[in-house]
Every structure is written in structure tokens, then in C-alpha cells.
């Protein structure tokens, strides 16, 4: 049986139908876990954060306007829960060259060479970038991830965060400068 999310929401809103709630969680889980993984704070389990997103989802579901696409509403909620978690949790302490794995050091070496001689391993670069992002301020990290990793447009970021386009551009500019400083400080 494949029931539309809107019907499931109506069943939850009218009678707190737990079967409908379970079906909703199942339908939205992959979307939520994708967002949570991209914005996961240092030393926090992805499932714990996803659980928090769904707890907020059911807390605010009575205020959901069916005229709005459910995916957008869930994405916005998930990003805001992640931002709150990023702000409330401790950041990763500053990284030094000796803290990096051999693979991450090699990735860094390859990235700074001009022209790039041996292509860095994508997974090593990603790991290195994530470790540095974990040392950054919550909003700086969020804007860099949304803009450069998820390649969201300014309009999409505006919808997700509620920030104006000027704020997004300014924050992204400052965040890139800070990230550059972090990379430069590694060696």
C-alpha cells in the first residue's frame, strides 16, 4: 500500500496515527540523512541528529502548510536543526600538519602543486576538507557546504536558511578567507 505523504500527515494531525507517523519517517529518512551527513557536527552520531530532526518534525507538523512542498519544508527544518547542533556543540580543535593522515597530507601536497601533477584522491580531499570544516564556526561551515559542496543556488540557500542574499555572499566570502587561512596554517 502506497499512501501519499499528505494523507499520512492528515492522519497524524487528526488522530495521532502512529502507523502514519512510521510511514512518514520511512518516506523522509533518506532525504533527512543526506542533509544530516553533510552538516554533521564533530563527534555526533548521524542517527542521533536525524532523530532530533524527526522529533522537531512531529513537534511542528501541526503548523505545516500543505500549500508548501513537503520536501522543501523538511529540508529547511533539517538544515536548521543541524545549524543548532553545530552551534551548541564543541568544534574540532585546530588541526596541525601532524594531525593529518598520510593520505590527507598527500592530498594537500597535490592540491597546492601548480599544475596539479598527480590527481589527489577524491575521498582523501573530502576527508581533509571535512576535518577543517569541523574546526570552523557553524554558520561559516554551513554556507561553505551549501554553496560549494552541495552547489545550491543563492535562492535555494535563502529558502533553507532564511538569510538574505547579501548576507549569504558576505558570509561565504569571509568563510572562504577563513578556510584559506586554515589551510595555509597547516604547514
Amino acid at each position, binding site marked *: 500500500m502506497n499512501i501519499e505523504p499528505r494523507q499520512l500527515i492528515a492522519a497524524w494531525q487528526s488522530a495521532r496515527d502512529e502507523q502514519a507517523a512510521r510511514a512518514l519517517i520511512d518516506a523522509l529518512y533518506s532525504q533527512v540523512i543526506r542533509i544530516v551527513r553533510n552538516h554533521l557536527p564533530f563527534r555526533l552520531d548521524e*542517527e542521533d541528529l536525524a532523530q532530533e530532526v*524527526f522529533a522537531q518534525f*512531529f513537534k511542528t507538523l501541526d503548523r505545516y502548510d500543505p500549500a508548501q512542498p513537503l520536501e522543501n519544508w523538511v529540508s529547511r527544518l533539517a538544515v536548521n536543526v543541524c545549524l543548532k547542533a553545530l552551534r551548541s556543540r564543541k568544534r574540532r580543535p585546530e588541526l596541525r600538519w601532524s594531525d593529518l593522515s598520510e593520505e590527507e597530507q598527500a*592530498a594537500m601536497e597535490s592540491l597546492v602543486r601548480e599544475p596539479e601533477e598527480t590527481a589527489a584522491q*577524491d575521498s582523501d580531499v573530502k576527508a581533509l*576538507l571535512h576535518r577543517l570544516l569541523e574546526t570552523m564556526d557553524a554558520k561559516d561551515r554551513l554556507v561553505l557546504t551549501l554553496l*560549494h559542496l552541495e552547489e545550491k543556488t543563492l535562492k535555494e540557500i535563502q529558502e533553507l536558511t532564511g538569510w538574505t542574499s547579501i548576507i549569504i555572499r558576505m558570509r561565504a566570502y569571509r568563510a572562504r578567507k577563513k578556510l584559506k587561512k586554515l589551510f*595555509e596554517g597547516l604547514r
Partner: protein
Amino acid sequence: MKLPDSFFDRLFRHARQAVALPVPEGAPQGFATRVLAQWREREPRDWTLWLLPRAIGLAAACVLTLLAVDGLLAPAGEEHELAGLMMSSALEGQP
């Protein structure tokens, strides 16, 4: 260390190209139960938090009403007492 101009382009391009972990189709076993348990646990607390300021407001309004009623009745009581005194002194003067 000076970074080349193309550094950020390369950095984010490689990071985007990295193979992402597979995303599960649905929630893992027991996940929905934990979410609903958390929701149930929070629901009465949220209700209490919502109710508390209103209860304080209502109590304050009751106290203010009592004080106002008391303030209105007090002068009337004094007048009544004064009238009683005048009456008794007038009666004392009679043979």
C-alpha cells in the same frame, strides 16, 4: 604556505566527486520507535512550558483583582464605621 588561485576550485571539485556513502531507502530498525518515544516524552513537557507563563499571568491577575476589590471596599467600610460612631455619640447625648 601560499595557496594557488585554483586551490578552492580543485578542493571542492575533488570533494564533490568523492563517492558518497550509500543512502538507505528507509529508516533503520527501531528508529521510528525511538523518534515516537522522544516525541511522547517531550509532548507533556512542552505543554507544561506553554502553560506555565499563562498560569503565572492568571495568578497575577487574580491577586491584582483581589487588591483592587479590597481597595474599593476599604473606604466604604471606614464610612460605615464613622457613621456608626456618630450615631452612637448622638444617642449618648439624649436623655
